């Protein structure tokens, strides 16, 4: 075994994140690490990468004890990691970020030629020559950032590569490219640990698996010999019924109408009608402009022409505030930068858009609010110590749930969801789909952006595809297949 972790435990205060976990990967093996949100996957990998230190347990790398005192040492010994929460410096260029910590220098000065070559090569491997090496990360969309992050790990030339949910913001095309590269690296003798909530994806890429549950190893083995149902049962502790439950619903009156809506930068004018009791999906490649469209509707992105009409409301100048008043709720794809105030508590985050529901004369009824939030946490199964826990202390998936809890708390009429299940485990995904279905059945409307096509095909009533800023006509989900969606999505780009 190239890498072994034995009996690793780690507690954060009263939270026992890891409780005697063991894991081993051989050279030339890709191991999938699977588990519910908050099971401890990221924590385990952070220990491996030296970002945090275990309370107990030991690590062995290439037969030698391995106790990294920090990320520096781990990197030097050949452990490269792609973190779940994108770790990029926003003020630096793509090139500087890719090379950060692994610069090639002469007399203390950067060898720019070598850097340019290395970065161009990595981006070429990922088939993303469109990402300009001198662009600042600040100006990139999330998908492009994820690509940069992967490029960084490619340059690292490590012995052990950890990928913590690398595809959560990638489209299937980009993901497929990534898999090819990972396969190639594995064949070259690298040991790879792959964390993902997409089970079919892990089958495609990994040979072995380990399931974590509540900080313990719940199961491990070879993927080829294990059924999906068995893995899910090990993960969730129960068998999961249907992933995409259909609720009885019929499209009603239009609630949201876009006519010739043209956001600034890139997007072409879009037309769209969203009806009550309908779930409408937006597919497309990274950078296609879906996020921009959603933000423009919500009043967060400047609009150059066209209108957004919301049922029963006069068309006034858009601002998030006005939109909330009109019953629109928005969940951002960028939960760290925009979706959540990480320093605030769960209850603050979950109720910020509708604080007045718990207030009289401008003052909050704290206990009332806490009760409401506790209820939401219960129903979305948010794993935390309580409503007062800081959002920053939650696992990635649980943070995403807090962002969704806000929309429920707000009792929005129209949901604008940008990659809503990003980083969410299968069990919770099913619950969120059920939640979306329930909302639609109650006559609310959902406009949902996702790069995960099975989800769009399973949940949505109609789907529209965006490609290079151009929005296609929305057609019933039954008319689409993954293949036809990709075709439309790439055609504009090709």
């Amino acid at each position, binding site marked *: 075994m190239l890498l072994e972790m034995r009996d690793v435990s780690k507690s954060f*205060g*009263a939270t026992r994140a890891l409780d005697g976990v063991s894991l081993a990967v051989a050279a030339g093996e890709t191991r999938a690490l699977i588990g519910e949100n908050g099971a401890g996957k990221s924590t385990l990998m952070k220990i491996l990468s030296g970002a945090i230190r275990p309370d107990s347990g030991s690590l062995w790398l290439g037969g030698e004890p391995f106790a990294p005192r920090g990320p520096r040492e781990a990197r030097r010994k050949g452990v490269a990691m792609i973190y779940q929460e994108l770790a990029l410096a926003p003020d630096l260029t793509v090139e500087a970020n890719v090379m950060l910590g692994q610069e090639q220098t002469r007399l203390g000065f950067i060898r720019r030629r070598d850097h340019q070559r290395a970065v161009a090569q990595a981006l070429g491997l990922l088939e993303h020559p469109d990402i300009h090496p001198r662009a600042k990360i600040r100006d990139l969309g999330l998908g492009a950032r994820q690509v940069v992050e992967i490029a960084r790990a490619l340059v690292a030339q490590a012995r052990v590569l950890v990928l913590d949910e690398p595809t959560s913001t990638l489209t299937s095309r980009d993901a497929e490219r990534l898999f090819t590269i990972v396969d190639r690296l594995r064949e070259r003798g690298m040991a790879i640990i792959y964390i993902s909530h997409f089970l079919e994806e892990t089958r495609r890429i990994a040979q072995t698996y380990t399931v974590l549950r509540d900080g313990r190893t719940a199961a491990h083995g070879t993927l080829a010999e294990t059924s999906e149902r068995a893995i899910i049962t090990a993960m969730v502790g129960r068998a999961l019924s249907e992933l995409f439950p259909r609720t009885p619903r019929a499209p009603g009156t239009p609630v949201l109408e876009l006519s010739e809506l043209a956001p600034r930068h890139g997007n072409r004018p879009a037309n769209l009608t969203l009806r009550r009791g309908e779930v409408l999906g937006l597919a497309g490649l990274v950078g296609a402009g879906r996020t921009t469209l959603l933000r423009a509707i*919500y009043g*967060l992105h400047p609009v150059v022409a066209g209108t957004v009409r919301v049922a029963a409301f006069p068309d006034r100048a858009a*601002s*998030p*505030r006005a*939109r*909330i*008043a009109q019953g629109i709720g*928005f969940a*951002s794809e960028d939960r760290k*930068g*925009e*979706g*959540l*105030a*990480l*320093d*605030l*508590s769960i*209850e*603050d*985050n979950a109720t*910020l*858009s509708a*604080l*007045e529901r718990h*207030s009289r004369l*401008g*003052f*909050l009824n*704290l206990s009332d609010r806490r009760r409401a939030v506790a209820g939401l946490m219960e129903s979305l199964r948010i794993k935390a*110590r*309580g409503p*007062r*826990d*800081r959002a920053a202390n939650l696992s990635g998936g649980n943070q995403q749930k807090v962002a969704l809890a*806000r929309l429920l708390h707000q009792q929005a009429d129209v949901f604008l969801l940008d990659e809503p299940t990003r980083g969410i485990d299968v069990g919770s995904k099913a619950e969120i789909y059920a939640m979306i279905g329930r909302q639609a059945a109650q006559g609310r409307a959902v406009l949902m952006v996702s790069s995960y096509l099975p989800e769009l095909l399973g949940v949505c009533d109609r789907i529209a595809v965006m490609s290079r800023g151009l929005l296609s006509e929305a057609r019933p989900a039954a008319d689409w297949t993954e293949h036809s969606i990709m075709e439309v999505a790439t055609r504009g780009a090709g």
Partner: protein
Amino acid sequence: MSDLAPFAARQRGLRGTLGWIWTVLGPFLGLILITVLFAWMTRETGSFLTLYNWRTIAVQTVVVGTAALGMTAIMIAGAIDLSVGSTVALVTVVVAMLVKRIDPALPGDLRSAGLALVVAMVLGVLVGGLCGAINGSLVAGLRVVPFIVTLGSYKVYRGLAKWLASSTTVYVPAESKAWWLSRILAPEPEPRWLMIAPGAWALVALAAALAIVLRYSLFGRHVYAVGSNESTARLCGVNVPKLKILVYALAGLATGLAGVLQFIYMSATGDPTTADGLELKVIAAVVIGGGSLSGGEGSVLGTLIGCLIMSVLDNGCVHAGIPNPTQDVIIGVIIVAAVTLDRIRRGGS
């Protein structure tokens, strides 16, 4: 902050039965240690640990404390105000000039009651609020960083103060000073049962009000949200520009009150050069009290403790008879030590 409870729970486990004493006294740790230190250093004269001296310290803290309350709100919202010192100076000048204008025009009995003073002082507070509102509007309107906007107004307000006062000190004639004026900041208050000066009580009341507003009001939660992550706040429908203007205006009222108190402290004098460097002192008090320059953090209690730490240091050094250069060194070391201690107490980073 809202996550005190689980945190406290964790800490309690660690510390066993001493738990709640620690929880209550914890934030005061630095202050207590400094007090003990000075009490020990002045054990021979004993002048430091007297009731009278603590009343004096209370009086010496009032102006900084009042201004620091405003700054706490501003810094929680992720902004900063460099113009507090200048605003205080401007307010003292305005109040002094108003008294000189209004008082002679009043009939005798109103004069002796000090009506002119009351009117001028209220207007002074409003001038402070106006200064704050201007800062806030510029920050929100020009979208220039608060540091620069208030650096500009730091100059402008100071210039206005000097210009109004013709570059010199404005004295209120003795006959315009009502009998109650000097009592507001007298270390030994009358009536006796007040315990500390009425001005100090005003600070306490203001602090309590601000603490409640920050914790329980929608406005307060929005202030924390904007300071913690402005994009999130906007996404959640907070009117960020309006909120900023409001925070600055309210903080300005506090600064205005600080100016009025400074005017009283200086026996009804309007001094355009006063409160020079107050901004640094006030910001330091907020940061010592746990506030952050990047917003989203800070508490009223912490700020008050920060102010007291600074006052006790200044006062204690004089009582211990420490020469001036050594005082500077000691104060510097203790500020760092107190904050380090607090960081360790709260458990790292």
